[in-house]
């Protein structure tokens, strides 16, 4: 521990402060950001199938976020990148637009899990269950499947596409109710028990989805549900008058892209407001020290339930959107690896940090959908060139390995995440920032730490 105390103060500056130190606050930063955004956009538009150009283009969002420029400029540039350039690239290469839509769905999920895990410190390993609830809710009622449940109203199913927006709200409500139902029995449990129980809950929901095709066919069983309804293209007349003729598929792709981004924007706003609210402070108190929080009058049960419900709502809404976008869902989508991949996103970005959750979700989705497949292709090329790469090795098949390595290395080497929340950063680097007196108190727990443990 003595070696750590001498860490120079410079190390503790955040990346943003360091960048500000280099480029200054003035026009230089603005010029660099604008140049970067424009160059990256032009590169991608001229090479719409290059993954590297795509990654450079997406990283312009990070540049916008990090560089010290005025907030209005950040908003305007962000709008330019996501609202103008990205849709245009989508007309050139649909795959890239889909990746962003997918990433947006996972960003919302990561933000929701971040409320539970990051804000309130309740480790939820069955989070994808809420996603499944939203998805199945819309899937069942937008297909003839619902007629099996309510035979008396059989002729009114499947519901028309317009109900989608109602179900977006219903998905939120249903997920919140399930969040409370799960929360009620497990509130008395300590953190690690809670993790296992939520894991079990996730498995139960998946097993139910897999088995509720008998005796009444509700969920379609292992085959899942196909031909899920999509929201109506209410803006089609506008497109016609503007004389834009695109295929229905392309229109829907753009439609879901915009909707996913809008939901992400709303979730970011909600998460930020929640974190800064009285509730958010209560969550922080619970996370830091439950006993002390009770002593200070924090209503523990209500706050934990609220955390569960609030986290679940994000997943419920995204589940409805996901089902409508893919038009097909089946139980394997909602298995535990999915839950853990969302957890990996939160951990990678930094628990409790909203920009962190966004970054983590975007990185892992990109890794899954773009970087790993490209790497697999590259491996095939290398193998043909004679490099010793085993025949059956396909990185796309080894997602678990990558998620696992992310979790291990992040917890050991950077537990505060890539974009740490301020408070957690301070907490995890406690011994560096405070004097040696505080360090002594810490030693009580660290007695067997390899650095300071008694060696016999």
């Amino acid at each position, binding site marked *: 521990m003595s070696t750590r105390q001498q860490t120079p103060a410079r190390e503790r500056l955040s990346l943003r402060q360091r960048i500000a130190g280099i480029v200054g606050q003035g026009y230089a930063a603005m010029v660099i950001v604008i140049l970067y955004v424009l160059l990256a956009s032009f590169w991608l538009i001229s090479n719409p199938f290059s993954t590297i150009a795509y990654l450079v283009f997406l990283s312009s969002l990070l540049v916008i976020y990090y560089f010290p420029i005025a907030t209005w400029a950040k908003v305007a540039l962000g709008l330019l990148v996501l609202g103008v350039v990205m849709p245009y690239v989508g007309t050139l290469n649909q795959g890239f637009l889909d990746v962003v839509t997918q990433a947006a769905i996972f960003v919302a999920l990561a933000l929701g899990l971040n409320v539970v*895990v990051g804000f309130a*410190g309740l*480790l939820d*390993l069955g989070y994808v269950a809420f996603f499944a609830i939203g998805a199945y809710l819309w899937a069942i009622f937008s297909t003839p499947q619902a007629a099996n449940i309510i035979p008396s109203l059989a002729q009114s199913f499947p519901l028309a596409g317009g109900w989608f927006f109602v179900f977006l709200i219903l998905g939120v409500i249903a997920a919140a109710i399930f969040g409370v139902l799960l929360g009620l*029995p*497990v509130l*008395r*449990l*300590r*953190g*690690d*028990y809670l*993790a*296992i*129980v939520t*894991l*079990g*809950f996730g*498995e*139960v929901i998946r*097993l*139910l989805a*897999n*088995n509720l095709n*008998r*005796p009444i066919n509700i969920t379609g069983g292992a085959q899942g549900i196909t031909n899920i309804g999509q929201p109506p293209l209410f803006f089609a007349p506008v497109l016609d008058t503007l004389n834009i003729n695109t295929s229905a598929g392309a229109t829907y792709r753009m439609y879901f892209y915009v909707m996913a981004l809008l939901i992400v924007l709303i979730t970011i706003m909600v998460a930020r407001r929640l974190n800064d609210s009285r509730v958010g402070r209560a969550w922080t108190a619970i996370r830091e020290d439950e*006993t002390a929080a009770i002593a200070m009058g924090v209503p523990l049960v209500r706050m934990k339930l609220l955390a569960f419900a609030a986290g679940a709502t994000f997943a419920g809404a995204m589940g409805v959107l996901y089902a409508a976008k893919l038009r097909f869902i089946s139980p394997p989508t909602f298995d*535990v*690896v999915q839950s*853990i991949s969302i*957890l990996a996103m939160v*951990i990678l970005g930094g628990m409790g940090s909203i920009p962190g959750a966004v970054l983590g979700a975007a990185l892992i989705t990109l890794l899954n959908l773009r970087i790993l497949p490209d790497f697999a292709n590259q491996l095939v090329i290398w193998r043909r060139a004679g490099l010793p790469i085993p025949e*059956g*090795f396909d990185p796309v098949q*080894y997602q*678990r*390995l990558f*998620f*696992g*390595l*992310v*979790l*291990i290395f992040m*917890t*050991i080497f950077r*537990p505060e995440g890539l974009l740490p929340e301020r408070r957690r950063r301070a907490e*995890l680097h406690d011994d560096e920032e405070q004097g040696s007196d505080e360090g002594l108190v*810490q030693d*009580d*727990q*660290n*007695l*067997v*730490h*390899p650095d300071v*443990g*008694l*060696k*016999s």
Partner: protein
Amino acid sequence: MAVKAQAQPMVSDRSSLGTLRQVLAPIGQILIFVIGGSLLLGTIVVMLALALQAGQANLLNGVVSVLPLVIIDGLVLGFLYATIALGYTLVYGVLEFINFAHGEIYMVGAFVGGGLGIWLASQGLLATMHPLIFVVIAVFVAMLASGLLAVGIERFAYRPLRGAPRLVPLISAIGVSLVLQDLVRLIAGPARFNLRYPTLNLGGRIPLFEMSTAAGTNLRVSIDNQSLIFIITSLLMLVALNYLINVTKLGKAIRAVAQDRPTASLMGINVNLIIALTFFVGGALGGGAGVLFGIKYSTVNPYIGFIAGLKAFTAAVLGGIGNITGAMVGGIVLGLLEAFVSTYLTLFTNGRLSGPDYASVASFLILIGILVFRPSGLLGEAATQKV
């Protein structure tokens, strides 16, 4: 550190008779739960059959005729969960940490045993060997491999995180578990994803007893050798573990570390070494269970560890986590319950509900129920939270 390693008295009795009693006492407890659980569940299904008899002809007869098989299946499943649960409970007792990767350590043991079997068969050694000798060798090799793996995991993934907030090592453990699944898959390759154990000629079924049913047919009840080996070996493991923890000096050190780590280190106990050894013992038990599973069910795959680990954790909680006999008892209760649900749910609903799937649902509901109503488990003592 409020949780004790086990419920036995901490001061060990020096007389040999006392030692013997202490080591063998859990077997009595387990017997009570085996018999009591079987009787209770058997009575419940028979009553249900009587109640539902009006709807289905021959229901009672069907229920009674499969009952002994269900009990034996339940016991095998129960001892499987119990042996894995011992690893959870040992590590939890010492570190208060859920070793999430323990299910995967068990899976690695199953693969090591199977790989050994295939290698021996390819060398032509397996045919010349008595099958029981192979079982013993495979169990020992797998125990060693799994134990060393557990020590390695502890050294590289958990030890750097000791003293961090509680959830941090748990997340690292989840990572380890995912990495192990895919590493084994990578090493086994697609051809060996479903690893088949070589067939062992262990002889036929051993008849236990005969009984005549109301319908006039004679019902022969027998047990297969694999199940018998399974049950006997896991009982031996329990006794050995009990001996290790309660009688040896190492066991005393483990208990001391479990009770109070800083004080134990002041008493000259090498805490890091003891924790590593605890992981070794827990991992070895898991590896042994893996081989036994492979011999009994003949096929293993890299994903068997996850659900088995979850169930075993349920068993450990059911019995009272941190309590060795509790883990055994919890495993047996859970195994019996699952076997009953998976057979009789299908039978009673005429195949409309798939029993095995709902058996998993039932065991998770039990986990939630036990945590809500009796968090200390069947045999555990109430642990108070220290401030």
